[in-house]
């Protein structure tokens, strides 16, 4: 009876030397427990869950009166549909194939998304904002989550509505039956741009590209380390490295999409083995 919490809940009456019983509003006596504002799970919570389940069932039954599961013609390995689309939840990844080679867009990046989601609780050391909705107390964390999922959903929308024959860009008002002329867009690796702009040899230009690529990560890692020391100290070295790796990779995906769409850049780094 002497701990702080108990004293607060049982304010000692000045006229009493001690008290063991508290009078509360309720339906039953509670022993060895502080007064609390609780109700029985049955029927209060169970009924809410039941109503929820019934509403979902009703909603689904109503929905399927209007839309039906699709069934196309029998699978035919000799007739490839154009365009071929993955299920909608993977269309974001399929859309990323436009910007990256398949080993990255289809394998490494999904792996990194999964890992990045998993490490989130371990790198988010902000003790505030547990158990209630808040934006102001954890702006940066919410920014990261929103940015990642904005990428995910925007690419899904592009893949669903703005891609047509040969996975070319089709506006809703374009003629979806006519093939786009692929020659209209010429994709070039970044080092060719440098060769043309700076009149340097291919090798020098490639070296420049490699430098830019590594500088992106190096400078990205360094800026908070030198200029936002509080952020670095707050995370500690290993958390900082893990977080910044995922953060810069995610931002890199956004950057690459912009470079590809606005400047027709195919690759930043070209090596005999992998191109990014």
């Amino acid at each position: 009876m002497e701990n702080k919490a108990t004293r607060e809940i049982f304010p000692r009456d000045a006229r009493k030397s001690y008290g063991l019983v508290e009078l509360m509003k309720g339906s039953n006596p509670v022993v060895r427990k502080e007064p609390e504002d609780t109700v029985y799970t049955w029927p209060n919570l169970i009924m809410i869950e039941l109503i929820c389940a019934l509403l979902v069932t009703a909603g689904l039954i109503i929905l399927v009166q209007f839309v039906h599961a699709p069934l196309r013609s029998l699978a035919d390995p000799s007739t490839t549909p154009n365009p071929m689309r993955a299920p909608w939840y993977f269309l974001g990844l399929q859309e990323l194939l436009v910007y990256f080679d398949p080993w990255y867009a289809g394998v490494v990046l999904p792996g990194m998304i999964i890992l990045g989601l998993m490490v989130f609780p371990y790198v988010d050391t902000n003790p505030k904002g547990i158990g209630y909705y808040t934006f102001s107390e954890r702006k940066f964390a919410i920014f990261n989550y929103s940015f990642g999922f904005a990428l995910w959903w925007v690419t899904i929308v592009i893949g669903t509505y703005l891609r047509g024959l040969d996975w070319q860009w089709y506006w809703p008002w374009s003629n979806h039956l006519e093939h786009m002329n692929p020659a209209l867009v010429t994709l070039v690796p970044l080092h060719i741009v440098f060769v043309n702009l700076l009149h340097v040899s291919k090798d020098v230009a490639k070296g420049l590209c490699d430098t830019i690529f590594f500088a992106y990560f190096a400078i990205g890692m360094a800026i908070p380390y030198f200029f936002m020391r509080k952020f670095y100290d707050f995370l500690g070295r290993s958390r900082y490295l893990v977080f910044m790796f995922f953060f810069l990779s995610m931002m890199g995906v956004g950057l690459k999409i912009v470079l590809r769409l606005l400047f027709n850049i195919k690759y930043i780094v070209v090596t005999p083995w992998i191109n990014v």
Partner: protein
Amino acid sequence: MLENMKGKIVRSQVFRSIFRHGFPDNDMNRAYTVFSNVFLHIHPVKVRRSALRMRYTFCLGGITLFLFIMLSVTGIWLMFYYTPYTGLAYNNIQDIQFVIFGGNLMRDLHRFAAHGMVLFVWLHMTRVFLTGAYKAPREFNWVVGVVLLVNTLVLSWTGYLLPWDQLAYWAVTVGTKMASYTPFIGQNGPWGAQLGFLPTNDIMFMLIGGTVVGQNALIRFYVLHCVVLPLVVTVFLAVHFWRIRKDGFSGPL
């Protein structure tokens, strides 16, 4: 008379052998109802009054679980009519759609509940994120949740192949082709060919049991979709719920 009958039923040996307690019309029996029932005992016996407010969780995790249960029920129903054989699968689906009583409803429910589950897993995750519910001491349950998210996606994707129509076939062809680009272990991936991986021995071959999506891929996806992945999801769900109780609720629950 009704009271009399109720009393007789509640006192009968059969009723008492099943429930061990009377009707939940008083506090003691309400408590017993929750903690002596295997399905209800994932709940605490009592919850805070504020937990009944919908505006914290929006019931999103619960809806996800309910959709999973619904998918299991409709899925098992569909299994009675479906043969994972390339020569029959498509005909079976057509039968389900056009011949079998209630088939259309069950297939539609299965399909849209699956879309719904993907959507609600994501909504639930977003809710957990926005309320900071993944922070210590609940970090690991978030990781379990991510595993469940991935499993949900793979479940949905493996089911996509089963109708064996053009949509299914090519969507899965696109997807499995990605596996051949896996670094080191895919024939088209970086360092895959150098390490000796061919169309006949790389990771994609392992996934679909051949060089193209065919009978072996269908049976693999069928077994994954109907047996392996639902079991994995069930196990991780059990851990997920257990950890909620053990780690405590984040909000006003």
